[in-house]
């Protein structure tokens, strides 16, 4: 489902560069536009620059160059309005151990400039199954519960844009699914969600659009479906009547492989290409007198796309 009617930009990042004090360049002139109301997944291996990117947008790290606007407000010159629009759930479980859940979410709301609103906070805590823990000290909670507390804190001031930095890292399956559910609900309420992850399945299941980042560079930004279509390779598997010991010379030059001890032929083609070449393949098989009893096709998963992207061209050849 595509909820976007008009693709209004809610976060606009242009030429964003970050060189840390030790000389390490964590971001290299990143351009990115996030649309209002979408779930955007920033996918990349560890050290790719995901946290750096988020930290700059949220005001925790200062950029070396480039500009960021959130809901139309520059994060430097108009930082109050920009930050008030953002909620951040950090990657690490940084919590005030001695505070109660209620105190810490109330604190967050105030910090972001909002008048107290117990009704809203109750709603947030209930939606995160934290209501019966509201008076508990945070240090008595499990890791998963602390993660929820961080989400509650980020939602306390009703942000338009929510950043989730690796929200499900080290979280059990049950909580992960609850979180995904919550993210979808938030989106239904008009909240734009940007999450980083190195779990492909997370991006695949959740996102409307995906950006792949590696070594501080955005390799690609696409609608998930387009990305799959564009970069996905399809494989056609033909289950043969009888085994082949080797590929007949008449089939040479085609992207074919023998599999299953000669009982299957695998034809790999690019969904991006003008023509799949399947018709030609079938004709040539017929000419060679090769019969098959069954055929099926499979699409490469985002994971394979991702691996081929971050490995670069060389990786793609050998993959």
């Amino acid at each position: 489902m595509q909820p976007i009617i008009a693709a209004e930009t809610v976060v606009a990042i242009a030429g964003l560069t970050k060189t840390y004090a030790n000389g390490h360049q964590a971001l290299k002139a990143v351009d990115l536009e996030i649309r209002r109301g979408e779930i955007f997944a920033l996918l990349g291996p560890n050290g790719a620059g995901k946290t750096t990117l988020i930290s700059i947008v949220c005001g925790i790290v200062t950029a070396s160059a480039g500009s960021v606007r959130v809901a139309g407000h520059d994060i430097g010159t108009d930082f109050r309005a920009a930050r008030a629009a953002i909620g951040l759930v950090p990657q690490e479980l940084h919590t005030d151990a001695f505070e109660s859940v209620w105190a810490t979410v109330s604190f967050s709301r105030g910090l972001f400039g909002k008048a107290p609103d117990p009704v809203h906070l109750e709603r947030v805590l209930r939606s995160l199954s934290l209501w019966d823990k509201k008076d508990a000290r945070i240090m008595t909670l499990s890791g998963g519960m602390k993660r929820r507390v961080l989400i509650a804190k980020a939602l306390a001031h009703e942000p338009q844009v929510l950043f989730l930095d690796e929200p499900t890292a080290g979280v059990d399956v049950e909580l992960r699914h609850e979180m995904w559910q919550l993210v979808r609900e938030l989106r239904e309420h008009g909240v734009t969600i940007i999450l980083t992850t190195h779990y492909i399945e997370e991006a695949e299941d959740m996102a409307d659009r995906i950006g792949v980042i590696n070594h501080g560079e955005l390799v690609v930004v696409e609608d998930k479906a387009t990305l799959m279509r564009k970069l996905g390779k399809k494989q056609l598997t033909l289950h043969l009547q009888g085994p082949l010991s080797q590929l007949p010379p008449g089939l040479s030059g085609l992207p074919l492989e023998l599999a299953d001890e000669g009982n299957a032929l695998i034809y790999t083609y690019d969904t991006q290409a003008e023509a799949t070449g399947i018709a030609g393949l079938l004709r040539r098989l017929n000419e060679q007198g090769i019969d098959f009893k069954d055929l099926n096709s499979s699409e490469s998963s985002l994971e394979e796309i991702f691996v081929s992207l971050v490995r670069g061209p060389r990786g793609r050849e050998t993959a």
Partner: protein
Amino acid sequence: MSLNLHAVRAIYRFEMARTFRTLMQSIASPVLSTSLYFLVFGTAIGARMGAIDGVDYGAYIIPGLVMLTVLSESISNASFGIYLPKWSGTIYELLSAPVSFAEAVLGYVGAAATKSMMLGILILATARVFVPYEIAHPWWMLAFLLLTAVTFCLFGFIIGIWADSWEKLQVIPTMVVTPLTFLGGAFYSINMLPPLWQKISLFNPVVYLVSGFRWSFYGVSDVNIGLSVGMTLGFMGICLAAIGGIFRTGYKLKQ
């Protein structure tokens, strides 16, 4: 530019809650240890000491001792208040919030100074149990207390931002501030020192604080009262300028 008052209030409340949660350590223990000074120096030893400037020794040391405790507690409390979130990582929230540096200072230093005032008044009340004393200029007394609390909470805040380890958090208070306070005339009048040491003492900012504060009690002082006020305000000005510098550079808070 409008002030994010909700944020100032949130920080202030958060810090005050921390104070009350650690009441034993943050209030009771300084009050107890200062009371021991009154007991030992004021009543036991003080009985064998002569009066200074016409004031009984037991009463004479009260303003200095209060100043000493307020000063060191202001530094340690304010530095701890901002160092703790840095250390635990929860500072991310303050840095990502629509809060200006001035508002953060207002919240943190305001709370720390409130606590210092409470502490100072509590110690004065406790001292009354052991030693009878009068306050000649109560408003001046409160003004000095407030000025000292705010100034040294600012100073502590700066230390807390500067420190990146627990050792660094302690080093200035123990290596610089404690010696200065002990040599700052809390237990004696600097007029009792040899002339050279009197001159050297005038470089110690604590001398001006203690002297001014004592004047508000007994009307006697080592240095001119105007000078005392001026020096305190001057030190506060330096701290505010340093805070402004930190604000402009984002020193050690952001990468």
